[in-house]
Each structure stands twice: as C-alpha cells, then as structure tokens.
C-alpha cells in the first residue's frame, strides 16, 4: 500500500489500475483496444482527477441509447453531446477534446473510475443502438467531437481556444492525442496555426506508445524526433514518462505564454499487463481466438485483482 503518498497520487494509481483491469476484462470476452488502456491509463486519469478543472458530470450514469434520429441536424437541435460527462460548459471550466476515438474504451473506463459513468454503462459497449460506441462519436460519453478522422480534434480545439480568448474566458482547453496523429498533415497545420496565433490556453497530451495498426510506428512511418519537430513548430514541449503521474501533473503546470503546451508521455503498450508482451508489436486491437487463451488471460486478470487487494502496483 502506498501509504506514504499523498492522497491524490493514491487515488490516481487506483483509478489507472482500474482502467486497465476493466478494459482487460472486457477485452477477454469481446475483444477490444486493450493496449491503448495500458499506455494511456495514467495520463487520462491524471487529467480527470487532477489537471483539468471540470464541473460535475451532466450525463446520465447509464448512457442513453442512440439511433438514426439522434444525429445532429436542423430537425434535431437538442441532440445530446458526450461532453455532458465532462461537466457544464462555463467560462471558468476547462474543456476536454478526445482525439483518438478508438481509445473510447479507455475513456469510458476512466469515466467509470472517476465516478462519471456507472460500471453497468460499459455493458452497452459496442452494442447495437448504444451511444457507448466502439470508436466514440460526439454523442459517446466523454467525447465532444468526432475525433476518429485523425488530426481534426486539435484544429477544432484550437478554434475553441481562440474563441474562448475572444470571449475572455479563463478556462483552459485540453486535447488528448495519440502519436500516430503526428503522421497527419493537418496536425502540423494546426501547430503552425497555434504558434502563429499565439494560442496559449491549450494543452495537448500525447500518448507516445509507438504503436499503430501495422505495428511499431518506427517500422511503419517514423515520427521521431518529435520533441524537436514540435519545438521547431513553436510549441512548448515537455517530455515525460507517461506512466509517472507526478511527472505528468508537474508537466501540466508548465508555463507556456504565447504558445501551446505539448506533453509527450512516452509509454508502453503493455504497461501493467505483462502477459500482453507475447503479442508485441501487434497490439492495435486485441481479440482472443481460443478458449485456452481466454482462460490464461482470465487467470492473469484474477492474479492482478488479487494484487490490487494486497496493494501491488499495476
């Protein structure tokens, strides 16, 4: 038990471990984006529990269903937004933009761990007619935009940040991105623009897990050295171990006048779930094909849960 740590660190570590095990449990039975939970758990839970100033959730603990008449349009002005789970929009509150929406399962699990979504809500994941979609849409809990076409969320968040500056709102804008998005031209257009227009009420947190569908990013389309590239594009860049919650939190407090802040959290796609190493580097979507495999992972899950009881670090 980490009795010597401050309360907030204990809380975040508990939540991050909860995210991993919850996503593992789901993936064993249904398949899922499991490695993304391993890499992002500390960053997402630190954002929600410590860094972001969000009001209480306005979303129902059990997410509402979603159908063809619920998409935004002139005939449906009151469509619901997944941003309700991030609290009310108000000048003094922060805003959160979740870009790599295939990480949705990790975000749902985070919302459960931080008390914004009922555990039962995850039962709807990827079910027909549910808003808890496999690749989140802007109606899915915790989502505000359709980030799934990469590079668009950061540009939209930049527009929101400039709009908030025009309105004199003190609230900050946060964007969670994956490293693969730095292969998209639009991402670089966005950083060029934020530097030029001196957008400094925005912070981007990046999961640097070096993973994409075809395998290691360094084998598919290398992006490094990313810190130097982003600095050349005018961003304030802080490099951290993406599993070190104190480093993540400290990085979010970095001053960045006149420019956006980027926190590059270098992570492992198997962090906390060592058994996944056997699949490396093909971890984008994990599906267990045999009952024998499921049995081994169920045993591993049980082992991790017992460690949780005795206080081991996931």
């Amino acid at each position, binding site marked *: 038990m980490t009795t010597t740590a401050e309360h907030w660190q204990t809380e975040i570590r508990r939540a991050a471990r909860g995210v991993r095990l919850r996503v593992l449990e789901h993936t064993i039975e249904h398949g899922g984006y499991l490695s993304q939970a391993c890499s992002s758990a500390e960053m997402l839970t630190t954002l929600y529990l410590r860094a972001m100033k969000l009001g209480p959730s306005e979303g129902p603990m059990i997410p509402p269903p979603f159908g063809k008449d619920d998409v935004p349009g002139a005939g449906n002005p009151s469509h619901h937004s997944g941003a309700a789970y991030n609290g009310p929009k108000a000048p003094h509150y922060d805003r959160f933009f979740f870009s790599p929406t295939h990480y949705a399962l990790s975000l749902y699990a985070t919302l459960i761990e931080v008390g914004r979504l009922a555990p039962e809500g995850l039962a709807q994941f990827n079910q027909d007619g549910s808003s808890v979609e496999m690749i989140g849409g802007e109606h899915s809990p915790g989502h505000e935009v359709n980030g799934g076409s990469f590079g668009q969320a950061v540009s939209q968040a*930049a*527009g*929101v940040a400039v*709009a908030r500056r025009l309105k004199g709102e003190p609230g900050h804008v946060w964007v969670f991105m994956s490293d693969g998005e730095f292969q998209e031209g639009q991402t670089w257009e966005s950083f*060029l623009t934020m530097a030029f227009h001196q957008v400094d009420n925005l912070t981007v947190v990046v999961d640097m897990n070096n993973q994409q569908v075809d395998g290691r990013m360094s084998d598919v389309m290398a992006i490094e050295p990313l810190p130097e590239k982003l600095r050349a594009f005018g961003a304030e860049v802080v490099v951290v171990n993406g599993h070190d919650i104190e480093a993540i939190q400290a990085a979010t407090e970095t001053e960045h006048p006149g420019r956006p802040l980027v926190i590059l959290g270098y992570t492992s796609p198997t962090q906390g779930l060592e058994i996944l190493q056997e699949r490396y580097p093909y971890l984008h979507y994990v599906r267990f094909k045999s009952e024998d495999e499921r049995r081994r992972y169920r045993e591993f899950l049980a082992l991790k849960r017992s460690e949780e009881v005795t206080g081991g670090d996931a």
Partner: protein
Amino acid sequence: MEMHKRVHARNLVAWAESRPEVLVLSGDLTSSCEIDTFRDSYPERFFSMGLTEQNTMSFCAGLAREGFVPMMHTFAVFMYRRALDQIEMSICYPNLRVRMFGFLPGVTTPGGATHQATNDVGVFRTLPNLTVLETGDATDVESVLDLSEQIDGPVYIRMIRGEIPRLFPTSEPMRLDTPRVLSEGTDITLFTTGICTEEALRAGMLLKSKGVSLEHVHVSTLKPFDSPQITASAAKAAHGVVTMENHSTIGGLGSAVAERMAEAGLSRPLTRIGLGDRYLHGSSKRYLMAEYGIDAYGLVRRLEEVLGEPLGITAEEVAASPVKTYVSEGQLEAL
C-alpha cells in the same frame, strides 16, 4: 445591364458591422476573395490562416461551437477537394454555423483544372446538413448573407467576384429554395444557375423574336431542392426541359432537376447543358464558355436540337444581343 465591381467586399463590411459574432478567415487569398476591406475594417475579427485548409475548416468548427459565425473564404477547390473530410466530420456532422465562400466556380478562372471548381455542387449536395447556394448576380451576392443568417447549420456559397452584372432588383433578394421565374412559356422550360443565367438572358430576346415560348427559371438554392416551382415549371414544357450550369453535368443542377422530375413522374425529354464529365483547361472565361457550350450561342444551338428545327440565329446576332435584366422592368407581370 448594370455592372458592379467588388460587390462582396463592400457588402460584407456593411453587413458585419452590427454583427460582432461574424469572423472572417482567409486562406491566403484575401484580395482574391474580396475580404481585404473586411480585414482593414475589423482586424480583430479577421484571421489569416495561410495555406492550412484542412486545419482551417476544423478551426472554423471550433469557433462555431463557441457561438461565433466563421466565414471561410478561399477558392472552392481548396475546400471541397482538399478538405472534404474536415468539412464533413468537423462542420457538417455537428451541423455548425460555418459559412464557406467558395470562389472560382467552373470556367470563371483561367487557372486550369487545379483552380476550377467543376464538381463542387455534386460533392456538396451529398453532404447531410449542408445548404448549397450559388450566386448569379450582384443582388444574389448582396442578399446571400441575410439568407445565410436564417440557416441554422453550415452553408456553402458558390461565389462570383470582380465585375458582375445586376440582373435582379435589389428589392428582390435571394430566398431559400425559391427559384426566380424570369420568363413564362410553354415550349421549353430552362433552368439556369450562376453565370449561366446571364447567358440565357442574352439569348432570351432573340428566342422570343423567333417565336420560342420559353419558361426561364434562375435557381440559387441547390440544396435543399424541394421547391414546387421546379416541377410546376417543368410540367409546362411541350418540347422538353433544359438545364444549363457552370458545372459538371453529373451531380449539379441538371441532376437535381432530373431527380425531381423522375420522383414526380414527369415525363419530358431533359437536356443537361454543362461542362460534361471532364476536367477543363486554363483559358479565359469567354473562351471556355464557348468551348463547352455554356454561353448564349451554345444554348441556342442546343435549343434547336430540342425543338427539332433551326432557329436561324447567328453567332453575330447573339453577340450583339442585349441582356434582358429584371432590374428596371420590375415584376414578372409586366414582362
């Protein structure tokens, strides 16, 4: 025919004065899109975005989410071709109040295939939530801003610029999904958009002198396309329905009219005059209009085919024919 210069430049500044929520964004084409006067008048509401079109479309969505009305100005090709995914997912899906001003439709630029928006209407008509408008004269350009304000969702406006005619009185602004009936007749019904309307008006007097009874309708709303005027006018045509547009013959006005006629069970021969199923090349507007047959003379030749008889109208007569406008003549009843 009255000609006016830089109508949008002047009009936008006056219109935006009392609308602080209106922001103007430029894709490094500030003078080319007639927003230099806006930039100089309201610098705090002008955003230079450079050549970042994909980013800019998503950025506009962010501004709109916060209650602003961003007006993106660039050449149409750099929006509908280069940034279509951003327009769809960042702007149209959430039904945001972003206004896209697309310049250089079809033959209105000598810039060649890279600069000529020849299938923008076809692409944009398939986008849910998007309203698609096209301007054809100074009154359209002036009144499209008021019209856009009434639309609670994204709007694409096919813009004309520079020296443009005034065909319609300022007292008769562009109205949503409300075609303008410019002449009534029973031989042929002709639907035109954009710069093609001026050409049809150029041919109008000659056709009348040859005894052709022409129903001519100017269309400025390409989506939605539900006006009962379309089928009502088409139904009057004894010989056939003709569409003429500065656009591919696939997906634009001609396709929209065909869909409405088919749905209504209206059986008439339909002739679609347009740029064909092809990319263009760089030449002057007049040269290209003649080459692709979307000028007054090209229209006359196609109408002869529809009527099945020569009209005895020469190219010289067409060139010398005045454009019959509706500015001084007033209401349709007087025609």
